[in-house]
């Protein structure tokens, strides 16, 4: 009796210690970046948790010489633009993939998964020469088009999952009542799967916001935030970690908030429903 109780206590303590380790491993790098963003230059070079907090870094990244304001706008406009094109197109296609049977359907569905796997560097090589020719280098629309390559297929899969889960009888009833197929879509199906559409929009936003390679290759002055950070990393006086961290906070905090809202879809979403 006593030994089993002892084992329970030991188990409980071990579990709490394990949790502490996870907390440190997962949380510490994030915490350290956040703390550093609020430090003066001299404190950023110390390992101390005690320091005088300052907002100076956030002021300096939105003022010359390293003004990140245009980069922030670019990141926002490009991410929103990607969502605005990818999600509606994906929703229409997802409906067809979910409700109808047609030739090459399975082949296209598999192609959609494949788009997530192909190393992006393969995609960007042809676009580099194409964009040079078309004058789309360093343009927002050029990046939005490139971002559709991964965000739209992903959104098709995700939204298809939501439509699959919707009983077809609801749509049939509306059709009996005299709705055209398009009216069914607009007034019945899409409103009912709105949570799915919003979820896929958030995934698309995160993907575009975090993207790095396409933006690095096709932009020179019209950078996004992630690529803009490269400027701070290669300064003559060494990396300015406190300014860098301030940009890092701007890059990660919106994504953390957004990812919390799609918490329940996180696990299944990423693998496109492979793990349930």
């Amino acid at each position, binding site marked *: 009796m006593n030994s089993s109780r002892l084992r329970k206590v030991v188990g409980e303590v071990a579990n709490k210690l394990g949790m502490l380790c*996870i907390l440190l491993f997962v949380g510490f790098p994030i915490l350290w970046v956040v703390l550093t963003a609020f430090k003066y230059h001299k404190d950023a070079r110390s390992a101390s948790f005690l320091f005088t907090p300052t907002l100076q870094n956030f002021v300096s990244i939105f003022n010359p010489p390293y003004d990140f304001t245009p980069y922030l706008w670019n990141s926002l406009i490009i991410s929103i633009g990607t969502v605005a094109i990818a999600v509606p197109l994906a929703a229409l296609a997802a409906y067809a993939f979910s409700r109808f049977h047609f030739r090459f359907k399975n082949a296209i569905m598999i192609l959609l998964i494949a788009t997530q*796997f192909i190393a992006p560097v393969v995609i960007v090589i042809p676009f580099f020469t194409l964009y040079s020719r078309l004058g789309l280098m360093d343009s927002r629309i050029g990046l939005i088009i490139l971002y559709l390559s991964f965000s739209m297929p992903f959104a098709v899969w995700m939204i298809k999952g939501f439509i699959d889960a919707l009983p077809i009888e609801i749509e049939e009833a509306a059709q009996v009542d005299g709705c055209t197929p398009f009216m069914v879509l607009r007034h019945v199906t899409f409103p009912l799967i709105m949570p799915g559409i919003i979820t896929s929009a958030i995934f698309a936003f995160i993907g575009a916001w975090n993207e790095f390679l396409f933006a690095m290759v096709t932009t020179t002055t019209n950078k996004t935030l992630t690529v803009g950070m490269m400027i701070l990393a290669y300064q003559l006086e060494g990396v300015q970690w406190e300014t860098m961290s301030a940009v890092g906070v701007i890059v990660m905090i919106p994504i953390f908030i957004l990812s919390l809202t799609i918490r329940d879809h996180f696990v299944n979403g990423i693998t496109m429903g492979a793990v349930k």
Partner: protein
Amino acid sequence: MRSKSFRFALIAPALLVILGTTIYPLVYSLLVSFQRWNLTKSTEPGPFVALENYVRAFGDKNFINSGVVTVKFTVISVSMSIVLGLVIALILNRPGRLADLMKTLLIFPFAMAPALKGFTWRFLLDGSFGFLDRIIDTLFPPMANIAWLASPNWALFWLAVTEVWGWAPYIALVFIGALGTMSTEMVDAAKVDGANSLQLLWHIILPTLTPILLVITLFKTIYSLKMFDQVVTMTGGGPGRATETLNFTVYRTAFANFDMGYASAQAYILVIVQLLFAVFYVRSLLGKGGAK
């Protein structure tokens, strides 16, 4: 007939996007991979040279090196992500508010921009003011003189750690999801029969996870082969060429040497390897009824 045109109208825009952003670049790259084309000399692709670019790749010391680096990186990052993911899942797979809070926290490293992951860990490991570097110096004095990102093996290891830091928490969430479907009766019965934790793990928990283990291993392998951002933001491929992955080598060939033909051939070799894994993955996906 009307419904047929309706269907077409629904998928046509999406098909157009796939055609333009995936099929076109893939076909174009394939063609270019058989051509000689240096962008600094000409804006148009040069003559077709059959397999010259591919043959060149397999005789190129740096390309072979990047293949070896990629295999090492993939093996380290996949195995560490899975094992650590399993450990995290076993610790957090219990009811309670604390465990729930921790599960929420697990989302963050995965959601963070990979480029930022690279910067973050570079900062933590910095020899003069990196926090992690100091901790290691204090706890393991013999390691005090190691400049982490200047040592070839350590640089590759830490590059893998940035990847594991993002993925182990995600994989843990996948495992926790799968453990939720495990029958509690079986666990209780085993406990009544006097099974200890290790026996429970070996005979009940691991068999429950086996199908998902295969899927997630393939999935993670494909993503490890894709990893790129952290190489740029953390090591720049260095020291020397110690962390130059295939992706990074293709990038350098294309956008530092502007040797587009050769870069395309290198890229296609990578794609073929990825496709092998993707075929297995799609099979495991279809096997589970993912696509109807």
